[in-house]
């Protein structure tokens, strides 16, 4: 069921990317899309009654039922790259605003 919610989040983000003309809203849409994708990738590895893939003193054997650790490792990578792209996008937004004094793409004029 949570996979449908993740696909819904992805589609909300994509709709926002297609229709918004405000640069801040475009970056927010990109982040919503990314979070939906991350939840979807995590949900692929979920196992009922599975425990987090960490050996501790109470869950101390690799013979126990774990959830899939590989999607979690991939999402760790995806989150970091998402932070990098968001920072770069916001830097572009800041320089657009300091030059044109607006955040709407339609109001940006050639000088």
């Amino acid at each position: 069921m949570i996979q449908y919610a993740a696909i819904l989040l992805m589609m909300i983000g994509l709709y926002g990317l297609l229709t918004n003309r405000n640069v801040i809203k475009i970056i927010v849409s990109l982040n919503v899309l990314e979070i939906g994708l991350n939840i979807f990738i995590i949900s692929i590895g979920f196992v009922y009654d599975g425990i987090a893939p960490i050996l501790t003193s109470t869950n101390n054997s690799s013979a126990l039922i774990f959830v899939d650790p590989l999607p979690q490792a991939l999402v760790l990578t995806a989150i970091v790259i998402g932070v990098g792209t968001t920072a770069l996008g916001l830097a572009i937004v800041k320089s657009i605003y300091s030059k044109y004094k607006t955040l709407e793409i339609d109001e940006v004029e050639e000088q």
Partner: protein
Amino acid sequence: MKKILGFILTIGLGLLIIFALDSNSSFDDFGFANLSNRVSSHYITKGSNVDIIFGETVNPESGPANIVTSIVVDYRSFDTLGEVTVLFISALGVSLLLGSAVTQKRMSLDFKPNFMLRVGSRALFGIIIMTGVYVTLHGHLTPGGGFPGGTMIASAMLLLYLADDQFRAKIKGFKILEGVAGSLFVIIGLLGLVVGTYFLQNFLPNGTVGDLFSSGIIPIVYILIGLKVGSEISGVIDNFLTEEEAQ
């Protein structure tokens, strides 16, 4: 008109994804992932036929008790090097777009921070830094590691920036730290090539699963990643909170 077109397009794409994955034999149902068919079963058993026991198994194929760490920094370590490079390039792009950090001055806040705010933020600063260092050091035993730990350290810097309008970090030191940590990561990888057989090989003994001093080079690499991520994101924060000096 454009909005209706976008709505139809997204609904169509969403239904396409749902129908493609629904009752697809090669895509496991939610909650019933079959790990024995996947490469993850190798990562969990660490390639051995005997069960890995926390605190007892000595010198397994990959040391960390946290299996996600053993994937991120051991099995797929080269991927992590690429990830760190992507973060470095985006931080470089931010500092190129927002101007050089040396000639700029601090952006002023809308309010005057009072005495309590300044002292309280400095008291919290130490606690947040300590939490970040703890998370970074125990990346191979508990949830966490270099990326979350480094982000916590950077968030401590952000707290000081937001609570004090005179504060400016010594950004040159961060740049040096970032460069040194990144180069040491590559040098450790090359050492694996020299001492062992392949790039980023774990050439130190793995030790007992669950010890703080275990799993060879993995804690060292994760500490370097934590330093690099922390200084990089602090540099990005400094770039965003400074502006050109009015001439």
